[in-house]
C-alpha cells in the first residue's frame, strides 16, 4: 500500500497512465456487461455508507414522533379517523364505479384493466450528482423487485427501477435527462412523451403539434404505451405552452405530480407483465 501511494517524479505522466486506464474502464462499462458482477459485489461494501448517511434523517423522523405532545397525537388520531371514514366511503363508491367500468369495457370488447399490487418502500439514498436523478430504495430482489418496475409516491409517478440488488435497488426518476415517459392528456387522450430536464420541478412534452388540443392546466397521466408504466397514473400538469413560429412542435412544460425531491415513502408497483417476467408479486 505504501508503494502504491508514493509520489512519483512526474504527476503528469502518472495522470496519462491513469487516464488511459480510466477511459478503458469507461468504454468497457459502457459497452459490455463485464463490470456488473463487480458493481454488485462492491455495492454491498459501500451500502453501510448509505446507512450511515441516513442516520440524521432517521433521527429527525424519530424525534418528530418522540417529542410530539399527547394533545397533538390525540388531534392527529381524530383527524386520521375522520379521513379514514371519508376514504372508506369514497372507496365504496370507487368499487361500484370500477365494476361499472369493467362492464362497459366488456361491452366495448376492450381488455380489462388489471389491479396492480404495490409494495411500500423507503428512500435510503439520493444521487449526489445534480445531473443524474436517481435514488436508492430499501427493497431489492429479496422482495421481488425487478428492473423496469414503476415507482410511485402518493401524488404520482416517480420513476422506474434500473438496478436491483439483494436488499436495495436504484431507481431512475422521471425528471432525469435520459428518461422519457409516454403520457396522455386526461381530458381528451392526446398522446405525447414527457422528457426529463434534470430539474426536479419540470418535465417537457415532446412532439406535440401546434394544432393539438392542449391547454395550460391539463392533467397528464401515463398512457401505458411502451408497456413499462401502467395506464392512468398521474404524471403532471401543464404549466406553460409556447408557440414559436419557426418550430414544428409546441414547447410545453409540465409540473410533475409526484413530490420528486421530497417524498421518502414510495410505492413499487407490480404490473402483471413485469412481475410475470422477472419476479413474483409479494
Amino acid at each position, binding site marked *: 500500500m505504501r508503494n502504491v501511494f508514493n509520489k512519483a517524479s512526474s504527476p503528469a505522466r502518472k495522470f496519462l497512465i491513469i487516464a488511459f486506464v480510466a477511459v478503458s474502464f469507461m468504454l468497457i462499462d459502457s459497452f459490455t456487461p463485464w463490470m456488473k458482477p463487480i458493481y454488485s459485489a462492491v455495492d454491498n461494501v*459501500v451500502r453501510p455508507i448509505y446507512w450511515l*448517511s441516513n442516520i440524521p434523517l432517521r433521527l429527525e423522523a424519530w424525534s418528530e414522533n418522540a417529542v410530539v405532545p399527547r394533545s397533538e397525537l390525540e388531534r392527529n388520531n381524530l383527524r386520521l379517523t375522520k379521513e379514514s371514514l371519508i376514504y372508506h366511503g369514497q372507496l365504496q363508491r370507487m368499487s361500484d364505479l370500477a365494476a361499472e367500468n369493467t362492464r362497459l369495457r366488456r361491452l366495448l370488447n376492450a381488455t380489462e384493466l388489471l389491479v396492480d399490487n404495490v409494495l411500500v418502500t423507503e428512500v435510503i439514498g439520493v444521487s449526489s*450528482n445534480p445531473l443524474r436523478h436517481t*435514488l436508492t430504495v430499501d427493497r431489492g430482489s429479496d422482495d421481488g423487485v425487478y428492473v423496469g418496475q414503476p415507482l410511485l409516491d402518493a401524488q404520482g409517478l416517480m420513476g422506474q427501477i434500473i438496478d436491483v440488488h439483494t436488499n436495495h435497488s436504484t431507481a431512475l426518476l422521471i425528471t432525469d435527462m435520459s428518461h422519457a415517459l409516454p403520457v396522455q392528456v386526461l381530458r381528451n387522450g392526446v398522446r405525447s412523451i414527457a422528457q426529463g430536464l434534470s430539474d426536479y420541478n419540470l418535465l417537457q412534452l415532446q412532439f406535440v403539434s401546434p394544432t393539438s388540443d392542449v391547454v395550460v392546466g391539463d392533467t397528464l397521466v401515463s398512457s401505458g404505451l411502451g408497456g413499462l408504466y401502467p395506464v392512468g397514473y398521474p404524471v403532471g400538469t401543464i404549466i406553460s405552452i409556447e408557440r414559436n413560429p419557426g418550430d414544428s412542435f409546441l414547447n410545453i412544460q409540465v409540473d410533475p405530480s409526484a413530490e420528486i425531491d421530497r417524498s421518502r415513502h414510495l410505492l413499487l408497483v407490480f404490473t402483471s407483465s413485469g412481475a410475470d417476467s422477472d419476479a413474483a408479486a409479494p
Partner: protein
Amino acid sequence: MKKDDHLVVALVSLVLAATLHVMPVTGSWIVWKPNFLLLVTMAWIFHRPSEFGVFFAASVGIFADFLMRSTLGHHMLMFAFCGALIGVLSRWSQFLSFIQRIVLVSLIVLLVGFVEASIFAAYDISAALTQVPMVALFSALFWPIIDKLIARSSAVDY
C-alpha cells in the same frame, strides 16, 4: 508505520466525506452541496504530497464510481486529474496564502465540474452548466473547515 497510520486516518476521513456526499438532501439544495470527497482528497494531497498523490486520487475516484454507481472510470479520471494538477502545482501551492488556496480549490472544483459536464455530454446527457459554479462556490466555503481538520490530522505524529 507513520505513513500507514496517516493512510488509516485518510481512509476514515474519506468514509466520513463519502457519508456527507451521499446524505439525502432536498432536491433544490442538491446543487449547492459541495463535493466533499474531492475536497478531502485534495486536502490530503495538499498536506501530505509525499504520501498521497495521483494514484491515491485515482483510488478515491474508483471508490466514488462504486459509491455513486457512475460509469467506472468517470470519477477516477476526474480525481486523478485533480491529483495531477495539485501535484504539478505542489511546489507553488505551499507558498500560497489561505485566500489564494481557497481560490485555487474553487477553480479546481469548477474545472472538474466542466470536465464532468463534458463527459456527460459524451453520453448525450445535457449538463446544467449553471449548477457547476454553485458547487464550486460552496466547496470554497467549506474548504477552510476541511483544510483545518485535515491539516490537524496530517500533522499528528503517530
